[in-house]
């Protein structure tokens, strides 16, 4: 038949490869700029969390206000198991991910039977409860004093300790996460999720088990956050509950909104913009308001959030991907089947756009 399945997939393969290559080459070029490397590492962690959240928000259409809790579960599980049981960081990471998935399952099952926005409430509540336990469960987490002495990760016999090494670790994970997300989107699962957006009642009538998919996406987002948290723990070697407060969950939300929740690159774009804006604010604002503290960041991002939702609800990645596609036409589109009519819209319809 000669129909090319790529015709319905949105996104530019060339563009994606380019981004991946840039990311992987970056440290080689800037190997002495520790500031850049460490900033990019943070962006990497946030990208992982945000990509998971993008799958949940953009594709399953659910809001979670508790991703920081899963991030924290990953961190503390890794910290605890590697320190107190001498477990390999990789196993501890898997343990954290499994725990996060189970918790998401337990919360998600009842939550998804409720009204749409009830997941937001449930995750809000859950986030506060988990945070309280991080604070109070001193025997396990060290409470407000924090958790010290988290060992580093070893990979193929090398101990990952420098920023240079860690950069690659994080970004391999981040890119793998984006790839995984991309694969989900370009499959029966992705279409099922999109169909739920299009018309829940029709999707239902065609056999799509809406609750199951929402739950699965929630669990996946929890796993993403947990893995990022585990990596984070090994990077900073000291964690405390304040890192996993509600405000962090809100920042993850903001990243997804900025990045655009209709594209798998949304997490990356959002995390990058968020971190860069944050750094920029730290530089600029003290010039104008001499004794301003860190809270001006909150105002700024609050206003940004509202503005973006009103004026640019599809986020930045949507606009960026349009530009990329124009600059790098996909060579596959030239191999079209003769049965299918030439259609200018073919490259940009369906797929990831909401």
């Amino acid at each position, binding site marked *: 038949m000669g129909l090319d399945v790529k015709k319905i997939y949105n996104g530019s393969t060339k563009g994606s490869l380019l981004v991946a290559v840039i990311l992987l080459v970056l440290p080689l070029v800037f190997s002495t700029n520790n500031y850049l490397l460490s900033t990019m590492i943070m962006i990497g962690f946030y990208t992982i969390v945000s990509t998971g959240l993008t799958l949940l928000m953009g594709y399953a259409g659910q809001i979670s206000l508790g991703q920081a809790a899963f991030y924290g579960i990953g961190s503390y599980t890794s910290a605890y198991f590697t320190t107190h049981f001498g477990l390999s960081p990789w196993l501890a990471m898997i343990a954290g991910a499994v725990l996060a998935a189970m918790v998401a399952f337990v919360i998600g099952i*009842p939550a998804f039977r409720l009204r749409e926005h009830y997941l937001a409430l*449930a995750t809000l509540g859950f986030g*506060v409860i988990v945070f309280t336990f991080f604070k109070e469960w001193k025997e396990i987490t060290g409470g407000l004093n924090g958790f010290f002495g988290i060992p580093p990760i070893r990979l193929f016999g090398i101990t990952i300790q420098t920023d240079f090494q860690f950069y690659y670790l994080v970004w391999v994970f981040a890119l793998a996460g984006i790839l995984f997300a991309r694969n989900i989107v370009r499959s029966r699962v992705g279409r099922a999720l999109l169909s739920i957006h299009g018309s829940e009642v029709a999707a239902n009538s065609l056999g799509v088990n809406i609750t199951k998919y929402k739950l699965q996406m929630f669990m996946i987002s929890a796993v993403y956050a947990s893995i990022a948290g585990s990596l984070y723990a090994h990077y900073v070697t000291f964690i405390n509950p304040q890192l996993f407060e509600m405000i962090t969950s809100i920042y993850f*939300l903001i990243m997804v909104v900025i990045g655009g929740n209709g594209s798998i690159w949304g997490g990356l774009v959002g995390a990058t913009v968020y971190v860069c804006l944050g750094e920029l604010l730290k530089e600029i604002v003290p010039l104008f308001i001499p004794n301003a*503290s860190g*809270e001006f960041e909150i105002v700024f*991002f609050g206003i940004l959030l*509202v503005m973006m*939702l009103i004026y640019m609800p599809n986020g930045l990645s949507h606009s960026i991907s349009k530009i990329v596609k124009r600059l790098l036409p996909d060579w596959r589109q030239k191999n079209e089947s003769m049965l299918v009519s030439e259609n200018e819209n073919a490259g940009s319809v369906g797929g990831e756009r909401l």
Partner: protein
Amino acid sequence: MDIWNQFVQLLFSGLTVGSIYALVALGFVITYSITGILNLSQGDFAMLGALICISFVNSGFPFIIAILLSIVLVMIIGGLFERSAIHPARYSSTATLIIITIGAAFVFRGIAIFVWGTQPYALRPFTGNDSLQIFGAVIQTQNIWAIGISLVSLAVLYFFFNKTYMGKAVTACVVNPFAARLMGIQPRKMSFGAIVISAGLGALAGIIIAPISGASYDMGVMIGLKAFIAAVIGGLTNAPAAIAGAFIIGILEAFTEGYFSSGYKDAISFGLLLLVLFFMPNGIFAKASGKRV
């Protein structure tokens, strides 16, 4: 008698805080019923009310005037918020609107930091520092004011919604916006009104509690969330149930703090939230209405 004293003390403490939650929760219910939006910046109206009132009082305004002006000012802020952030996005999804209110909450907090800084402020109690002895426990008069004013406000609003034409018009919008429009009632104006009234309620709550627990830029967060839980207990649309829920939460918190540990205070309330969401999503007091959640 000490146990008994402590019990009464905690009870009044709980009722006081519960009455604050009740006012804010009512604001939630009004906003949600009329607009379908969960306004997560509701608690910050309390914060603004408290801080603005303190500023007025410190600038020499007579006490009563300060209170009234503050409430009006916060209502104006609420109106501006509705026009600039809610109204332009009114066709967006519920999810988007909820996130917008989160953003607004941040803005309010940021403005508060900018104007008042991060330190806590105090408002003097309404009738001085006297206290009463009730059942052997020492109760501040401010607590009585708090509980009393809340109950009066709630009664006034009950009267408004159930006995006056305007109130019934608002209810009509909730039940059947289309029919309401045919009758000349405008749901869009209702959205504005709902938020303005909620803002006023929130401001009042903040002003009442300020003499007891102080005022600072982040006081709205937990107040809002707890009140929110109370509203959920009431199924988000049942005002009396939400008010009852608010008092339940207040008392539960007070007792947890008193008998158990203050660290877990928040967890208890949110645990209650999860319980209600999962087992009684239509609220504790809901009858089987046949309507699916």
